[in-house]
Every structure is written in structure tokens, then in C-alpha cells.
């Protein structure tokens, strides 16, 4: 009795004080203030009422008040009973007037009276905060609110969530809400409703739902529900495994597209000139360094620098390629093994040049915003944007090259020389010029591959070496002088590599692929798509 009357007297006092405190902002919301007063009560039942009042008040400060209360940062000063927000600083508290936000300096702990809460209140608080936030205009806040209530959904909350689901416009929040509804459904008392919920989550791969079904199987007593739950779980796991395979396929295609980019220039030069260009990897490296240099020149617009580096790298590597052809390779036609050695020498010189200019350390090339991040397909499958971009970029380059070789007059000349050099020359094609241009084209594409690679790995002097043997394998596997062979060879090797990796480990997967190609060459020495006609020996 005594405590009640004391509470009452204090409450009246608080009310007055709060009225004076609450001068900033809009209309003082009486429901909100009533709630605040109830918070100062000793009894937890009163506090709970206060929390409910604040929750229903729709006051802009409501969510913050409850959150501070939950975090234990809401106090009354012992002396003049002002509601303050306190942040612990060593032995003291830095306090500020809760309603106006005005700083009140440091005070000793004993001068403050904390608003205490218990576990029941804590749970109420969480739900109330979530309910307030569910109405928040900001999408991210609503999403966070839904995820926050996932662990404790009660029937009452379930109804509110269902209401939100009806009105929600944002796609992501809707998804989160449907997960929450499903979990709520699985916790229903009514067996039929649980079964219905199980039916509705069939094929939903959200990890929370999977855990919930697992928990349901553990606690469930009804045999029918257990059976349904188990079958749903199997279905979900099957779907998850399927998405995992899809993800592996994506990584494989991504690796494959990089291989195609790296190998396609090599395939052109090898097909036309019959020359293995061991410096091809270093031409890729030059393209990657061109990207790096352009980004250093334009540090403010990384995206533009990247877009510009595609033609720039094509130019740099292409010119380097023409230079190599004119100064070295043209003296060695008809001696393929010597060409191999000479171009290897060129690769060493290029590597050391880059090492001298840019230091042997790896350089990192920044990724523009539109290429970073990932595309989320569902909770367990998300594709990294840079890999997706590079895949489509590789296909674009392939398409452009294909058109160039099939439709342009240069392409016609290139194909003619590749098929029969002597006859092409008799028809008036300047074979030497075609050789130089082809070599430049192949090298330029190596440069473009370098731009793509700079978005996936660090740029260093050994970048080319890491890809050269793989590129050879793609060309040899796909068949020389055949663009389709290179495409198919590159993609299939990439996919095979990624599917072997989880089973055997990355290094062993690579070894298996190499051994496979060595054996494959024995069986089909001309690759997947051998050259036909007189060009073939």
C-alpha cells in the first residue's frame, strides 16, 4: 500500500517534469508520456503496460525509447528525476536529456537510477520494437525488424505479420515476411495448420526454414506431421544440393570464360601462322598492367578507366604483338620449334621489363561499383557480379571475333591464308601483311583478356605464366584454328575443373585435367574439331 502511494506521488511529479522536458518537436503525445511515467514504476506489470502504451503511441521517439530500455541505457537522475540516456564511460556515465537530447555531462553511477527490466519484459520489448519497426517507412529497417522476430514468433505476432504481408510492397521484405509466416505456421498448435505450413514451405531453401523443420521433427509427436516434415526436409535438401550444383556450374563457366578469353587469341595465331606464341601470357599481362596504369591516371573515375582500358589494352598488346611478329617471328616461319623458343625468350624479356618498371610486387586493380557485390538469386545462391560481367564480356568478345573472321574482308583473307597459304598468295592476298595483322589481332585479344583478369586476380609479373599452360591446353583440346572448338574446350575444361575440385581438391583437379588432356591428345591428336581438307596433314 505504501509503495503504491509512493509510486503514485512520484508518477504525478514525473508527469509534470516530463511535460516541461517534452518541449521540443511536435504535439506532446499523451499516450507516449503516460507510458514513460509507467516505466518509472517499481512493478514490472506497470512497466509492461507502459511499454504497450509507448508501442501503441506512434510517437517518433517510441522505437528509440524501447530500444534504449532494452539496452539498459535509460535512467532517472536521483536528484531531480529527469529521464536521461546514459552511456557508460569508465566509472561514470555520460548522460543526456532523453527527450531533448541535450548533453548533461558526466555523473557518478550512484546519482542515477536505472529502469530495470526482467526477461518477460525483454521479450515484450523485442516484439514491440519489431512491431513499431514493421511500420517504418524505410525498407531496410522493416527487413531488419522481420528478421529480428524470426526467433520468437507467437500467434499474436503472426496475425500482425500476416497483415504486414498483405500491404508490403518491397520484394525483399515480402520474402522475409513469408519466411516468418511459414515459421509461425510451423509452430501452430493446430496439427492441420502445421501440415498446411509444411506444404507451403516445400521447396523453400531459406536456411532458417530448414532449421525450423529440423526442430519440428525433433519436438513433434504427431506421426503424420513428422512424416510430412521429413518429406519436406528431403525435398528442401534436394533443392539445396541442386542449387549447389548450379553454383559450381556458375563458377565453372566463369573459369571457362576466362580460359576462353585467354586462349582465343592463341588459337587464332596458332591456326593461321602455325606458331605457338609462348609470349601470349605476357601479352595478357601487358593488358592487365594497362588497366592498372589507366586507373592510376584516373583515380576518380575507376569505371571509366576500366571501360577505356579495353581498347587501350587491345592497342598496347596488339602493337606489341605486331612488333614481335615483324622483328622476330617472320624470320622463323617454317621452323615452328624455333619460333617456340624465340617467343619464350620474348616472354622472359617482357616479364623482366615489367618487373623492372612496376616492381615485382603484385598490384591490385580496383573494381568499379557496378561490378562489385553480387546478384542474389535466393538465400543460398548468389552470383558475384564481376564474374557474371566477365562471362558476358567473354561471350561478347567471342561473338565480335567470330563476326570479324566470318564477315569482314580481313577475316576472309585470314581464313584463306590459314587454309592454303600458297593459293591465297596466288590470288593476290598479301600473306605477310595478313600474318602481321593476325598476330596483332590475337595479341590484342590477349590484352583484353588481361583487362578481364585484372578484375579477378592481382596484377603481377607472373600473371601470364599462370594462364599460359591452361590456354595451351584449351587450344590443343579444342582443335587448332577453330573458334567453336576453343569456346567449347575452354568452357568444358573450366566446368570440369570446378566439378572435380570439391571431390579431389584444387591442385589434384588441375592435375587430373592435365593428365586427361595428355591422354586425349593421344586419341585425337587434332583436338575436338580437327581441321579438314588440305590444310590437315
Amino acid at each position, binding site marked *: 500500500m505504501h509503495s503504491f502511494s509512493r509510486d503514485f506521488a512520484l508518477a504525478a511529479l514525473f508527469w509534470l517534469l516530463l511535460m516541461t522536458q517534452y518541449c521540443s518537436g511536435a504535439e506532446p503525445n499523451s499516450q507516449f508520456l503516460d507510458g514513460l511515467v509507467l516505466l518509472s514504476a517499481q512493478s514490472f506489470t506497470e512497466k509492461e503496460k507502459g511499454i504497450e502504451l509507448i508501442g501503441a503511441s506512434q510517437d517518433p521517439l517510441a522505437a528509440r525509447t524501447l530500444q534504449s530500455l532494452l539496452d539498459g541505457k535509460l535512467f532517472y537522475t536521483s536528484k531531480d528525476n529527469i529521464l536521461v540516456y546514459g552511456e557508460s564511460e569508465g566509472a561514470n556515465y555520460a548522460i543526456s536529456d532523453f527527450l531533448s537530447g541535450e548533453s548533461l555531462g558526466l555523473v557518478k553511477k550512484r546519482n542515477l537510477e536505472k529502469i530495470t527490466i526482467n526477461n518477460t519484459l525483454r521479450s515484450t520489448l523485442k516484439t514491440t520494437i519489431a512491431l513499431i519497426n514493421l511500420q517504418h517507412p524505410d525498407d531496410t529497417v522493416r527487413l531488419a525488424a522481420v528478421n529480428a522476430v524470426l526467433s520468437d514468433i507467437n500467434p499474436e505476432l503472426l496475425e500482425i505479420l500476416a497483415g504486414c504481408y498483405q500491404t508490403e510492397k518491397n520484394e525483399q521484405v515480402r520474402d522475409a515476411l513469408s519466411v516468418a509466416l511459414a515459421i509461425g505456421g510451423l509452430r501452430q498448435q493446430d496439427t492441420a495448420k502445421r501440415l498446411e505450413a509444411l506444404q507451403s514451405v516445400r521447396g523453400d531453401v531459406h536456411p532458417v526454414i530448414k532449421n525450423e523443420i529440423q526442430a519440428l521433427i525433433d519436438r513433434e509427436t504427431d506421426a503424420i506431421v513428422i512424416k510430412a516434415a521429413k518429406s519436406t526436409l528431403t525435398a528442401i535438401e534436394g533443392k539445396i544440393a541442386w542449387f549447389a550444383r548450379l553454383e559450381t556450374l556458375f563458377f565453372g563457366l566463369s573459369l571457362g570464360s576466362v580460359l576462353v578469353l585467354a586462349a582465343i587469341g592463341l588459337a587464332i595465331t596458332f591456326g593461321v601462322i*602455325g606458331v*605457338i606464341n609462348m609470349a601470349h601470357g605476357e601479352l595478357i599481362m601487358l593488358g592487365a598492367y594497362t588497366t592498372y596504369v589507366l586507373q592510376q591516371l584516373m583515380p576518380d573515375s575507376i569505371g571509366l578507366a576500366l571501360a577505356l582500358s579495353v581498347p587501350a589494352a587491345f592497342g598496347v598488346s596488339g602493337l606489341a604483338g605486331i612488333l614481335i611478329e615483324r622483328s*622476330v617471328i617472320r*624470320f*622463323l616461319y617454317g*621452323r*615452328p*620449334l*624455333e*619460333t*617456340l*623458343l*624465340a617467343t*619464350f*625468350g*620474348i*616472354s*622472359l*624479356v617482357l*616479364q*623482366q*621489363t615489367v*618487373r*623492372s618498371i612496376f616492381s615485382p610486387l603484385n598490384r591490385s586493380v580496383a573494381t568499379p561499383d557496378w561490378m562489385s557485390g553480387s546478384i542474389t538469386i535466393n538465400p543460398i545462391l548468389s552470383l558475384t557480379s564481376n564474374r557474371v560481367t566477365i562471362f558476358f564480356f567473354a561471350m561478347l568478345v567471342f561473338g565480335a571475333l567470330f563476326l570479324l573472321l566470318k564477315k569482314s574482308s580481313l577475316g576472309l583473307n585470314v581464313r584463306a591464308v590459314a587454309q592454303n597459304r600458297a593459293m591465297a598468295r596466288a590470288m593476290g592476298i598479301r600473306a605477310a601483311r595478313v600474318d602481321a595483322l593476325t598476330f596483332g589481332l590475337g595479341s590484342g585479344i590477349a590484352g583484353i583478356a588481361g583487362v578481364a583478369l585484372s578484375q579477378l586476380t592481382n596484377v603481377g609479373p607472373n600473371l601470364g605464366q599462370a594462364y599460359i*599452360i591452361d590456354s*595451351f*591446353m584449351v587450344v*590443343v583440346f579444342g582443335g587448332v584454328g577453330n573458334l567453336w572448338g576453343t569456346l567449347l574446350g575452354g568452357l568444358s575444361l573450366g566446368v570440369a575443373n570446378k566439378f572435380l575440385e570439391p571431390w579431389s581438391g584444387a*591442385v*589434384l583437379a*588441375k*592435375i587430373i585435367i*592435365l*593428365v586427361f*588432356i*595428355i*591422354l586425349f*591428345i*593421344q*586419341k585425337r*591428336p587434332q583436338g575436338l574439331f580437327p581441321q579438314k581438307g588440305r590444310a590437315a596433314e
Partner: protein
Amino acid sequence: MSSVRLLYNDKPGMVMLVLLAAAAVLVPLCNLGFPDGHLLHISTFTMTLVGKYLCYGLLAVSVDLVWGYLGILSLGHGAFFALGGYAMGMYLMRQIGDRGVYGNPLLPDFMVFLNWQDLPWFWHGFDYFFFALLMVILVPAALAFAFGWFAFRSRVTGVYLSIITQAMTYALLLAFFRNEMGFGGNNGLTDFKDILGFPLQSDVTKAGLFVASATALALGYLCCRFITGSKLGRVCTAIRDQEPRVRFLGYRVENIKLFVFTFSAVLAGIAGALYVPQVGIINPTEFSPLNSIEIVIWVAVGGRGTLYGAVAGALVVNYAKSYLTAAFPDAWLFGLGALFILVTIFLPRGISGGMTGLFRKRQEIN
């Protein structure tokens, strides 16, 4: 009688063999017989260095046999060299016994480190020198035989063959980097103590290894000279120049190729086995494609298809490498790269080809 005439006709080879014999006698003598600081003293470092070059010389001879006479540009001979080296390294590992860092009498240090309980099956037998010697020969031979069996039968030739030999050594490089393989991972095998009971640190053992290397090079050279001078050698040259025609004449080209390729791999393996005790370590970088392609450039510099040219090339290039990497560390790759380009364009027959060309011109003038 014919073999004597063969040697008589091979004048540069005779000169080389005489020089080799002189080195095999004089270098250890100058090292052991004269005290440090004496005018005629040859330091142990120099002796080991030259011994290493002699192993490279044997390796170069083996590459020249297949490239210069058979027309197979192998970019994977470093793999055979390294396999021979690993076989010897395993013997030397077993000789350490309980003197390792962990003092385990049964297991080499790296296995103790990896927490292995038993010796893997393929390590058994390497306690015996003769078994190790057998493996030095058999393991590279088996790999070369299996590889050649498939490759030559399906008539993989030219650039394709070069590329897949490179893929072979690259695959082995990756494999030997794995700790699970049981060959010491990327650290390889090292910390050797003694060979046949002789401590590896002592000058006498090093002199012995030097003599062994010189002898092996001389014997390897003679074997290759004998092969190239025989009827088999002439068929090889014919295969190099016109493979289809030789086949049409009724020769079993793939069998000839297989034999010579395997023999060459054995020589490379022996070179590796002699190399490892002298440098004191064998690790997977010996499998790297760059190493294999460097061997080819020794042969190209010396002049292919001569055998003695290969030895000369190995000595010259490696001396230049030792000098340049110490004096101008950055310049070595420039130098090596330039060597590749210049030799292929301007000196297609290498130093020895250029020399004999000069002599011939002078004779014509006279």
C-alpha cells in the same frame, strides 16, 4: 673397329673427352693436394659448381639426343632429371637415420612434422643404394616409356608433342608440391648427411662426386655417340628429316622413337641423381616448365645435333647464369631472353655450328 673409327672421326668430341678426363684428374687433385691459398688450389665451391655443370652437361646431351637427332623438342626433360634426383634424394633421406631434427629413426623429418605414423610403401627399399640406383634408372624410364608409348603410337608430333611434354612436367610440378604425395611438399628433400657412409660435407666425398659426374658425362656421351653413329642413329636422323618417308620404307618409327626417348630419359635421370648430392637439395621447382625449357636453350646455344655442342652450351650458359645472377641480378632474365631470340635467329646451329663453319671456310680458302 668401327667404334674406334667413329671416335676418330669425332674430333671435337675427342677434344672434349680429353678435357673431361683431364678435369676429372686435375680438379680433385688441385682441390685436395694443394692447401688453401696455394696458387694451384681449386676451392671446393668451384669444384662443386663445375660438378653441377657437368650434370647439366649430361642432361643437355640427353636432350640433344632426342631433339638434335630425332626431332622431338621435349619441354619436359626436367621432369626426368628431377625424378632421378628424387630417387637419389630418397636414398640420402634414409641415410640420415635418427640424426634428423626430430631424431626419429624410422621416419624422415617432414613425415614426423606431418604427423605420419608409418613409412609410405613407395619409400621402402630406398635404404639400399642399389635399389635407389635401380629406381634412378627405372622411374624416369617408366614415365618416358608410358608417355612415349601413347604419344608416338598416335603420331603426336611437332609443337603438339612439345606442349604436352610441358603439360606433363607441369602436372608433376603441381603434384610434388602437395604434402600428401609424401615427397616433402614444397620444401622437397634436404638436410642430407652422407652417401655410402661418406659424409657429404667432406672435400673427399665432393671430389668423388665430381669424378663420378665427369665419368657419367663421358660415358653418357660415348653411348649417345655410339647410338648416333650406328645404323639406328642414321634412321633417327632420317625420322627427324622425313618421318612419313621412313615409315613408308617399312621402319617402325614409333618403336625407334620410344627406345631413344626412353634412353634419353634414363640419362637425364642419372644426371639428376648425381646433381642432388652435390647441391644438397631436391624440391619441386626442378619440375617447373622454365627449367625444362632452359635445358633446350643450352642445347640451342651449343648447337644441336652435335652432342659435344650440348655440353659446351650447358657449361657456357650456366657459367653466364652464375656470373650474371650474382653480378647483375636483374639482368639475367633479360640476358636469357635475348639468348633465346638471338640464337634462334642468328645462330641456328649454335656455337659449335658457327665454329665448324668458320674452320670449314678457312680450309676452303687454303
